[in-house]
């Protein structure tokens, strides 16, 4: 009996990471069918002009969910600013939020927002597969102008287990599973972004390109994504750190691994290569022909 109680307690501790009231990726059909849900907030994160010209009926527009800070390109806003933005959007911890970006090519920016929300304490977040382009392509209803929801009292509560900073990465460099989701040329050191100081990748990092997630702008089937991870012999039981150049692409695989495949030990490195490549103690590895 004691063993059963212990198992239940352990299950309760693990369960919240999987407890979702909505799939991580939703279709235009699902969204249309659920527009009447009082908990639903459709969060359109496109440019204001595009939003005003046409959006999912009832959607609110939100900006400023990532920002340049401390010489890094894409960082999480300060807690109070983020609280204000989410509260003004009518979001609280009980909301079911569907993030809408322009199209499949902007999937990475949608997951960046989705990751930020989950990190901030909103567990039920989904990304609209194919973005607004999929919505209009499916011939769904469109509203114009600006819409708003009643402001909530939401205050963010960051979940530290989803976030890695440079100190955490350095501390876990040798024992963690580090996933580099940039393109092959960048990983191998043949090309690099101007704002990254070194060619190549963090020693020991495994390449898992973000570009593998979508095809024709739509997210590939879960089984296919799972097979990629399996083929690379990545382990869900290991501490995992995902990075890219500036912390946007990294959230794509963070989203798939944690929110779709149920991994629980994954952190996204917000500063990514832009941050750690400045550290002379970290020598990036370039491709060498042997």
């Amino acid at each position: 009996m004691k063993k059963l109680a212990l198992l239940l307690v352990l299950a309760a501790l693990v369960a919240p990471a999987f407890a979702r009231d909505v799939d991580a990726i939703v279709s235009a059909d699902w969204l249309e069918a659920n527009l009447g849900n009082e908990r639903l907030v459709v969060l359109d994160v496109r440019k204001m002009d595009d939003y005003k010209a046409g959006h999912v009926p009832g959607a609110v527009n939100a900006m400023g969910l990532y920002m340049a800070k401390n010489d890094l390109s894409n960082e999480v806003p300060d807690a109070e600013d983020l609280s204000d933005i989410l509260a003004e959007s009518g979001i609280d911890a009980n909301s079911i939020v569907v993030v809408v970006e322009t199209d499949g090519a902007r999937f990475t920016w949608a997951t960046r927002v989705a990751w930020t929300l989950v990190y901030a304490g909103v567990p039920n977040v989904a990304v609209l597969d194919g973005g607004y382009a999929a919505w209009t392509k499916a011939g769904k209803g469109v509203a114009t102008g600006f819409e708003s929801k009643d402001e909530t009292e939401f205050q963010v509560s960051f979940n530290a287990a989803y976030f890695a900073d440079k100190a955490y990465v350095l501390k876990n460099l040798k024992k963690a599973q580090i996933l580099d989701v940039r393109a092959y040329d960048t990983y191998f050191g043949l090309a690099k972004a101007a704002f990254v100081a070194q060619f190549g990748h963090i020693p020991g990092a495994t390449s898992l390109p973000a570009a593998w997630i979508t095809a024709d702008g739509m997210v590939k089937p879960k089984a296919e994504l799972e097979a990629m991870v399996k083929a690379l012999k990545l382990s869900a039981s290991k501490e995992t750190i995902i990075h890219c150049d500036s912390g946007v692409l990294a959230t794509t695989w963070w989203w798939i691994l944690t929110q779709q495949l149920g991994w629980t030990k994954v952190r996204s490195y917000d500063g990514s290569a832009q941050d750690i490549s400045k550290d002379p103690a970290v020598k990036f590895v370039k491709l060498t022909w042997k």
Partner: protein
Amino acid sequence: MGFVVSPDALAEDPHFYLDCISCHQGNQNAADKAAAHKGMIKRPSDQPETSCGQCHEAISKTYTLALHYTAAGMKNGVAPRFNAAEKKLFDQKVFEQSCRSCHASCGDCHVQSPVVSGINSGLLDGHRFVKADESKTCALCHGGRVWPEFTGDYTGVPDVHYRKGMTCTDCHSGDQFHGTSGAASGRKDVANRPSCTDCHDIATMGKDSTQETHATHLEHVSCSACHVTSEYRQCSNCHEGSGATAKPGLVLGKSPRNPKELTTLRLIPTVRDTFKHAGVTMSNYDSLPNYWDAVPHNLAKRTDRTRDCNACHVEGAHYLQTSDLPEGLSLKNLELVP
């Protein structure tokens, strides 16, 4: 290749009741291009009264005196730095040749985006006449400072008003752009320019503590001093001659127009030899400061100053310091240090 003026536009826009030559002139009956284009005017609304003024008489007349058309704010803003002879030379060699070339025609706001440094983004909507399309018009001329600060593209989070769907014309009325009657000498002289209190009644707004705070600070501190949330662009060198450099900064100091008021200051990059290339000196350079009271369009309900009184009253956060003043600039800057 489509037509600049499509059949749809012709059917929808009442302006196309007129022929092309009514505005652009030229010869519409000519068979070859050279003859058809002879005498053609590319930008008819550079002369508002003889173009748009044919129908919009009153508004075209007042617009010829408005700041967007005259660019007088640039001329009058720097004028006290010159003696009479220098001023005359400046008007001829700099203002008319350089600053004045930036004036906006009617079409720059209503037909195509304005040309900035030789580049624009083309027609706003075919050749349709558009009432307002701020992100393609205002955003181009004001794209160095105000617009990217407003949208959060420069630093920090977007302005709270932008987050609520507001754009330029929600606060800045058409009258401000088109002028009303007399010639304006600078933006501070525009009688109907917007004020926060047009919408926000600070006597009744918010909790008791908010009302008390507003009442206490009303006479001494501008709204922006507390509610600007992010660093905004500070240009630290002249935009002529050696070229401008800029960096983000949030600066609080005494308003040069009202020394009793603490406000947000922006560094305006007129250095001592800004107009040297045109042979214009500034004998009275030190009569004006280089920092000017500005309202960066990056406002938030809560900032580090509204959250904690100590930010200003103990730490003097963001306060202009004598040691911050760029070397070689106006001695008048010293008077703005709180």
